[in-house]
């Protein structure tokens, strides 16, 4: 049990809202995230939108605690960091799947979060069903197709019963059919009350899923707010150009 998050086995309290103030991340003398301030509200689908290199993935990693910020404050509703971790899950752009079966991969995640053994079987079955991978339980997780792997990663995240789910460009390397299936799962999870924070550079996807938008450009938060308003009346030159399909550097 060495090193596990044993400090807080009790259910975490509500994680959100999260108030972010003056968030800065620097590397090699460059500001990769430059003074970001915004609020994440519960049970919304927030899309972090922007061109490649805007800092979307980095922002997700900072929020999830994978990268420490250089400056700034993250004010969570749940003060305990270990409990906060228990209330979150992360799905990476390139899914990280273990070198074992679909069930084995799910079992490790559940064991790591100390989900009681008697519950694990049911959660695995539910996750496999959510991913549409019935019949693939004994298949090597890494031998699945790209779309299947990403669905498994999403279902694994759901098996942890997070309040807050971070998705880093989950469909970046998928074809339209696979993207449609992944988006259906994201909608399903949102409908179950999971707060979704996802990054994408795909405008169509942002329009389909976003309730809130954080538009990043060059490491700065250029616009933040209601998705409908953002898409109808973008306030900044960069956002207007992005929405009109111009190639932003």
């Amino acid at each position, binding site marked *: *049990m*060495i*090193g*596990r*998050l044993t400090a807080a086995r009790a259910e975490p309290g509500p994680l959100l809202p999260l108030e972010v103030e003056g968030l800065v991340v620097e590397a090699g003398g460059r500001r990769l995230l430059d003074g970001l301030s915004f609020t994440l509200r519960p049970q919304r689908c927030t899309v972090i939108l922007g061109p490649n290199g805007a800092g979307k993935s980095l922002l997700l*990693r900072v929020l*999830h*605690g*994978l990268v420490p910020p250089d400056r700034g404050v993250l004010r969570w509703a749940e003060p305990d960091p*270990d409990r906060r*971790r*228990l209330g*979150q*899950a*992360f799905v*990476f752009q390139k899914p*990280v799947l*273990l*070198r*074992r079966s679909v069930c084995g991969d799910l079992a*490790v*995640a559940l064991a*790591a*979060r100390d989900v009681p053994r008697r519950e694990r079987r049911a959660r695995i079955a539910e996750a496999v069903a959510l991913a549409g991978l019935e019949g693939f339980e004994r298949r*090597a*997780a*890494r*031998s*699945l197709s790209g779309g299947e792997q990403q669905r498994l990663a999403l279902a694994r995240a759901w098996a*942890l019963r997070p309040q807050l789910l971070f998705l880093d460009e989950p469909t970046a390397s998928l074809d339209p059919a696979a993207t449609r299936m992944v988006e259906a799962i994201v909608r399903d999870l949102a409908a179950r009350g999971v707060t979704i924070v996802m990054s994408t550079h795909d405008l169509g996807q942002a329009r389909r899923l976003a309730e809130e938008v954080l538009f990043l450009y060059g490491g700065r938060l250029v616009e933040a707010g209601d998705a409908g308003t953002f898409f109808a009346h973008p306030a900044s030159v960069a956002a207007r150009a992005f929405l009109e399909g111009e190639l932003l550097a």
Partner: protein
Amino acid sequence: MGEIGEAAATALRLLRSADPELFAIVALSLEVSLTATGLAAAIGLPLGALLAVARFPGRGALVLLVDAGLGLPPVVVGLLVYLLLSRAGPLGELGLLFTPTAMVIAQTILVTPIVAALARRAVADLLEDYHEHLTSLGLRPLAAVPVLLFDARYRLATACLAGFGRAAAEVGAILIVGGNIRDHTRTMTTAIALETSKGALEQALALGFVLILVVLAVNLAAAGLSTMARRIEG
């Protein structure tokens, strides 16, 4: 050339007739090398994993030491174990010199760095791949060692095979600490050295065939593991 051909034919006859002395030598060789590999795996696998995941003062030096151990000269290891086990040495009272146990000790010392160094590399590569996922799950690297060892199983098995290959083919260390005593500590490699020096090429060649078969089997097993890993791991 005729002499070598004749020796080869006699060697094959010896093998076909299941010569008891020859088979006793083969059996002892396998027993010593397998035991040494087993012990080296028991020490080297956790050590390699620890070096891959843990951060502690002196870790860099230990990694360097283990990596340097890959090139340990067998005769020097043999000499050191000899000094330890000889009657005047610190472990002389145990009376282990010129026994198969002494040979196992020497080979374990030779094989452990191989297993540990390859295991460290395998686990470190895997950790690089899994790190963010494990952190996201709240599993810190030390707690993740069982997961990492299981997922690196094919590369770790290959590391053990490499160690066994080294042990089976090694002659310098076991010759010094085993003494190449007939019916007691004579193994394939020490017997080949002795028989060749005596000019008894038949016995040497017969043992040479078996040794090559063992090494081939090890390589085949390693290749099989690698294919299986590619199929299963995608």
